[in-house]
């Protein structure tokens, strides 16, 4: 109904049109409450942020459409950088997608503000068994005792390495039993200033960085209740210094260098030997012919308190103000099923959350040691989040960048961060 052919009319009649449609717009507010099946064909929108997953999502949408010919799913990709900004503005304006991807840092914010549809009805209609998903992820999408998201996938963190750079220095590749010390001495040994090669990249990065090393040292970013910062603990300091010492030793490029050229690019170009990255990276590396056989992945090295990766997973959620509740529920039910998980596993883009489908993912790229990612689940810690996660992750970036850059010493910087983060957390109440 909103077609480009109205352009000429729009140009000529704009003022009338604006006023007329404004009136229309106001009158469409009411029909949201229940899941009455709609008679005619409907189109629902599905908001996602990862371009690499479009083929898998499209396949799921197509199969869903084949089973429900009345419902067409239209995929909307918004790059992650803008995704939540746009989503929030869209939700405030009543125009968020009918179904969309949600992540840990944001789910509580959306649930607490009545932007998400509680999924009890969806779960019972599709007969979903929540025991089939990792418990940490089901809990992540539970707020106030209600389920708001069906786990879609999960990701853990691994150490990607460039085989040629290890071979050049005659060093053994990283393995399961590596400790922090092994990692750091390898990083130093791999560094070759004359060739512009660094042993590791230590960017100011949370998920594939200090969110792993802080718990590995026995600390936590935020307490389990999500009310208190853990950055001012000695363990957190240890987890941060794991990274800053690499920069100080010259075994990693400086923050300034990694701002100019992303560490991911440096790794892909063979300028960085070891790079921590999530399981989502596998499909990207396997798509590049030059990288496909040149890199591999190992689990994160064990810190003082063992081998710990952070686990995070996306959830599929329904917009509370969707105009097609029935169709949206059917679709999310389908997304939560084994078939949709199987399609994701075959595509290899992510590790599906549904029990028993991970093996297909591991086998989808046999040249990589993807089992490392799946094995890490046993000791993984949940992704740190609170109701307004963004308020303190912004502080985190600001203050830790100063620590990395040497403007502030780590102990002072972390104490500062904890104080400010606690103030932000206090505001959430």
């Amino acid at each position: 109904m909103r077609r480009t052919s109205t352009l000429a009319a729009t140009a000529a009649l704009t003022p009338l049109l604006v006023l007329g449609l404004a009136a229309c717009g106001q009158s469409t507010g009411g029909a949201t409450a229940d899941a009455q099946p709609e008679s005619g064909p409907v189109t629902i929108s599905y908001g996602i942020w990862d371009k690499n997953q479009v083929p898998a999502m499209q396949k799921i949408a197509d199969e869903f459409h084949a089973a429900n010919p009345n419902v067409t799913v239209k995929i909307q990709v918004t790059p992650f950088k803008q995704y939540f900004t746009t989503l929030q503005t869209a939700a405030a304006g009543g125009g968020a997608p009918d179904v969309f991807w949600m992540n840990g840092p944001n789910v509580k914010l959306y649930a607490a503000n009545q932007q998400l549809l509680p999924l009890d009805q969806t779960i019972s209609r599709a007969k979903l068994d929540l025991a089939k998903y990792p418990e940490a992820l089901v809990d992540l999408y539970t707020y106030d005792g209600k389920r708001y998201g069906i786990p879609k996938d999960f990701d853990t963190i691994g150490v990607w390495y460039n085989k040629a750079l290890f071979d050049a220095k005659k060093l053994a590749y990283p393995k399961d039993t590596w400790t922090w010390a092994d990692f750091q001495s390898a990083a130093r040994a791999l560094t070759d200033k004359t060739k512009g090669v660094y042993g590791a990249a230590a960017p100011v990065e949370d998920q594939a960085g200090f969110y792993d090393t802080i718990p590995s040292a026995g600390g936590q970013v935020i307490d389990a209740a999500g009310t208190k910062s853990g950055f001012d603990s000695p363990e957190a300091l240890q987890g941060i210094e794991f990274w800053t010492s690499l920069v100080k030793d010259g075994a990693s490029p400086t923050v300034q260098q990694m701002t100019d050229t992303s560490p991911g690019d440096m790794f892909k170009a063979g300028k960085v030997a070891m790079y921590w990255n999530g399981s989502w990276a596998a499909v990207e590396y396997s798509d590049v012919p030059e990288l496909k056989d040149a890199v591999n992945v190992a689990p994160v090295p064990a810190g003082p308190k063992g081998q710990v990766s952070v686990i995070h997973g996306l959830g599929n959620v329904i917009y509370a103000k969707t105009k097609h509740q029935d169709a949206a529920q059917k679709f999310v039910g389908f997304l939560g099923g084994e078939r949709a998980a199987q399609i994701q596993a075959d595509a290899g883009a992510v590790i599906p959350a549904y029990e028993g489908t991970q093996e297909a993912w591991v086998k989808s790229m046999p040249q990589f040691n993807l089992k490392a990612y799946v094995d890490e689940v046993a000791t993984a810690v949940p992704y740190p989040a609170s109701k307004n996660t963004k308020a303190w992750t912004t502080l985190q970036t600001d203050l830790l960048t100063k620590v990395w850059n040497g403007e502030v010493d780590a102990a002072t910087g972390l104490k500062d961060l904890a104080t400010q983060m606690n103030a932000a957390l206090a505001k959430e109440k």
Partner: protein
Amino acid sequence: MAGVLTDREQASGTVGATAPAGSSSGSGSRGDTPAPGRRPGRPGRSHQPGRGMSRMRRNDLFWAAVFILPTLLGLVVFYLWPVVRTLLISFTETGPFGGSEFVGLANYRELFGDARLWETMLNTVKFTVVALLGIPVALVIAALLSTEGLRGVRIYRVLYFLPVVTMPAAVGLIWRTLYNGDVGVINALLGLVGIEGTNWLSNPATALYAIAAVGIWLSLGTQIVIFLAAIQGVPKDLYEAAALDGAGRIRQFWSITLPQISPSVFFISVLAVIGALQTFDLIFVMTGPTNPAYPQTETIVAQFYQRGFVENQQGYAAAIALVILVVIVAVTALQFRLQKKWVHYV
């Protein structure tokens, strides 16, 4: 410069230069006697002028409404109302998903007590001052391009104008690769003459100036073209007289060209200041919160974006927007006051 000269020509009555291209039907319509084809189809309906003031006024009012109303409505809906609305928002604290409560002046109190506001203001001022340095550069290039008998002016003008037509987002990307500390071409060139460069965009000491330089690069073409047009408009006999007095090129520039084109210089400086005070696109593309130089480059508009669209504090952001408004109005007013001292209208 036809675009500039045409209205001069038209003012002096030589309309012929432009009319034929524009009107297909009325080739004979120039001058005092309109061609028959120009007659209105329904003479009976026509509004005869000169039938008394009030009648004409009312007639004008009707037509003015027809002509202005569409734009007026659009401006009211999309521009004037939003200003009022933003003012209202600035007195509220917005929930993350709309829904807001009145908080009075709380946003303003918080804003003026926030050290970040003053930092971003200072960055903005630095940025603006550097941006103004582009004007003398543009003047010199325009003066050189006006050299009597110079060849290739047309080509030069196109080359200097090229950045004006390119997308700022793309421009930011290009310069990011040029400024790269390790592999950037700028440092490679500096290395040839024995200077060791830096990470221009992530070094807190250089980032702001590096971005401002790109801002100048982007707008130089516009400024040159406008100055060139203005220099064309300077009466030639002034130069001839000066030349007879033995004034050289440089003295002619200072004593004739510059005073004569000072209205254009003023116009450009107002535009440059307003543009620089609102710098955002380049900052957005070339730095970012993870950049160690971000605190030294964040402008007030970038802070507005951060608050309003990243941290979802619409009320606070609205208050920043109003501060930006006040700053721009004040600075522009100041420029208009100062212009009396140096702008010569001929």
